[in-house]
């Protein structure tokens, strides 16, 4: 069986930057990634798509090609299409690729598992035709596929970017329906302070809004009473805004109100997590190098807390440097010397977060959904069910599983975990930290008996 100095899960900006730097320091690196090509979601398929539609997707996207290029180093074994389903002591990482199980042993592990969209449970959000804005981005980046009649709903700069790209591609959205209000934006302005980076973000956002206005994209702000209508698929979005009721017929609804760390791998290792009120999610507890309270396990990029692609890149490098020092490849002095400019960039890039968090708060009615709204997509459990469990004495998400199977379907709580925590915390008058989160166990992704059988064969072959 292969043993490497560093195993990295996820070939997004954090994982790619970390792999390249660690290899340059002489470390043997295995980079495991679920997708067929490197990039993560932000730079999804960049090597192929940059040439086809780089103009449409913009320079922030094509920048990813510098990271994929740096992966071509003899010290990096990039295993694409690898689905990691267990990380065990020592560390042994089990994964499947092409229907076969395999394992890699690593002295240290970097989790660079990125973000998922913040769950946005609204009436009708499970209908075919309702997707996340991130899914819309992936359809465009990887496949060049655009929704012909879409409504964009929620909050955050990603909605502006998505709308602008759709406009440039000749399929403008029917409407941009924002849940944030003008006072959210005004209140956020004081968080900009002297951070030049923050002002650049603001100007970029305003530039996109101006482009949308010129393109005739209808925009609503402060929308409430959101519901997606339809029987077999999404047919319309209804909401109130500006003192009026609206109903927009559409085929596709793209939802977005921020992204949250993908914590499945970190949780499965028992890493301590703390509630972060500003980001309204749990974050793994890490030291200044990104190392967790499980020695040898590091977390970087959006899976460590939402900071965006540039933060992910530098945080990945920082973790890789510390691994190089821990493995005896560089001295403490060299570590500090090389870390200094990375930390400076990180501080600059992170300066904009308080502004973004304040300007684009999550949609209140999706954080505390109405009783009838499904919150667990897999097992079809409603918000009212969870509140009812609380009235029967349910205090935490793991108990909720026993009450009604929330979080026990194939997504393993990825798209209901935060909602269940929030609902139970609210109903019981407890903090999210006291309420806790689902206990996540391997397998992190479903694995078949056939794949396991194949793995035994691989392990035997290796032993012989």
């Amino acid at each position, binding site marked *: 069986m292969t043993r490497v100095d560093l195993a990295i899960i996820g070939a997004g900006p954090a994982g790619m930057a970390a792999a390249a730097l660690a290899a340059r320091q002489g470390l043997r690196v295995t980079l495991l990634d679920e997708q067929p090509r490197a990039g993560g979601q932000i730079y999804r398929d960049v090597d192929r798509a940059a040439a086809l539609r780089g103009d449409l997707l913009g320079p922030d996207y094509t920048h990813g090609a510098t990271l994929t290029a740096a992966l071509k180093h003899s010290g990096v074994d990039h295993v694409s299409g690898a689905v990691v389903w267990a990380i065990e002591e020592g560390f042994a990482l089990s994964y499947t690729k092409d229907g076969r199980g395999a394992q890699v042993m690593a002295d240290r592990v970097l989790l660079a598992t990125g973000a*998922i969209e913040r769950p946005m449970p609204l009436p009708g959000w499970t209908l075919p035709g309702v*997707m*996340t804005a991130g899914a819309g981005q992936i359809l465009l980046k990887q496949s060049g*596929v655009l929704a012909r009649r879409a409504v964009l709903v929620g909050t955050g700069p990603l909605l502006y970017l998505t709308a602008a790209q759709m406009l440039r591609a000749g399929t403008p959205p029917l409407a941009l329906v924002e849940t944030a209000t003008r006072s959210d934006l005004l209140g956020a302005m004081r968080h900009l302070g002297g951070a030049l980076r923050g002002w650049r973000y603001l100007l970029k956002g305003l530039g996109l809004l101006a482009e949308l206005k010129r393109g005739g994209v209808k925009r609503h702000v402060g929308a409430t009473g959101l519901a997606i209508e339809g029987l077999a698929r999404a047919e319309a979005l209804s909401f109130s805004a500006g003192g009026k009721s609206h109903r927009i017929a559409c085929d596709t609804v793209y939802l977005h109100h921020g992204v949250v760390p993908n914590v499945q791998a970190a949780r499965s290792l028992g890493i301590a997590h703390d509630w972060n009120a500003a980001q309204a999610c749990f974050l793994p507890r890490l030291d200044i190098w990104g190392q967790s309270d499980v020695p040898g396990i590091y977390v970087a990029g959006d899976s460590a807390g939402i900071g965006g692609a540039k933060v992910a890149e530098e945080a990945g490098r920082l973790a890789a440097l510390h691994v190089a020092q821990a493995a005896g490849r560089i001295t403490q002095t060299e570590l500090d010397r090389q870390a200094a400019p990375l930390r400076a960039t990180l501080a600059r890039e992170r300066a904009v977060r308080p502004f973004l968090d304040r300007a684009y708060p999550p949609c209140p009615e999706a954080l505390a959904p109405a009783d009838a709204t499904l919150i667990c997509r897999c*097992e079809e459990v409603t918000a009212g069910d969870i509140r009812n469990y609380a009235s029967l004495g349910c205090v935490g998400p793991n108990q909720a599983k026993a009450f009604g199977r929330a979080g026990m379907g194939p*997504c393993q709580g990825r*798209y209901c975990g935060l909602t269940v925590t929030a609902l139970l915390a609210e109903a019981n008058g407890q903090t999210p930290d006291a309420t806790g989160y689902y206990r996540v166990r391997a397998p992190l992704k479903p694995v078949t008996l056939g794949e396991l059988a194949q793995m035994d064969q691989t392990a035997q072959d290796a032993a012989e």
Partner: protein
Amino acid sequence: MNNASPFLETETASRVTVTFAGAPLDLPLGANLAAALLTAGVGAFRQTPVSGAPRGPFCMMGACFDCLVEIDGVARQACMTEVTAGLQIDRPHEGDHDAG
């Protein structure tokens, strides 16, 4: 191009024939299966085992499992699968939900 589909395709690639729920479809070779099915006009990929409600792709990144289909008898995430010639794709759990 499928004009009845809610999705517009901008790339051209050579096509291969697959079947979805028994019906033949010509999809781009090597494409993301979920994207290709959406573009071909498939909305509901499966019904939930709990109530039989229709579901289609939601996250496109392997996290939500709403795009589960059955290929050669194995449940697979369509968004994590590439189109190859001759795929026989079915809706999983067809007809075996509780309906209650």
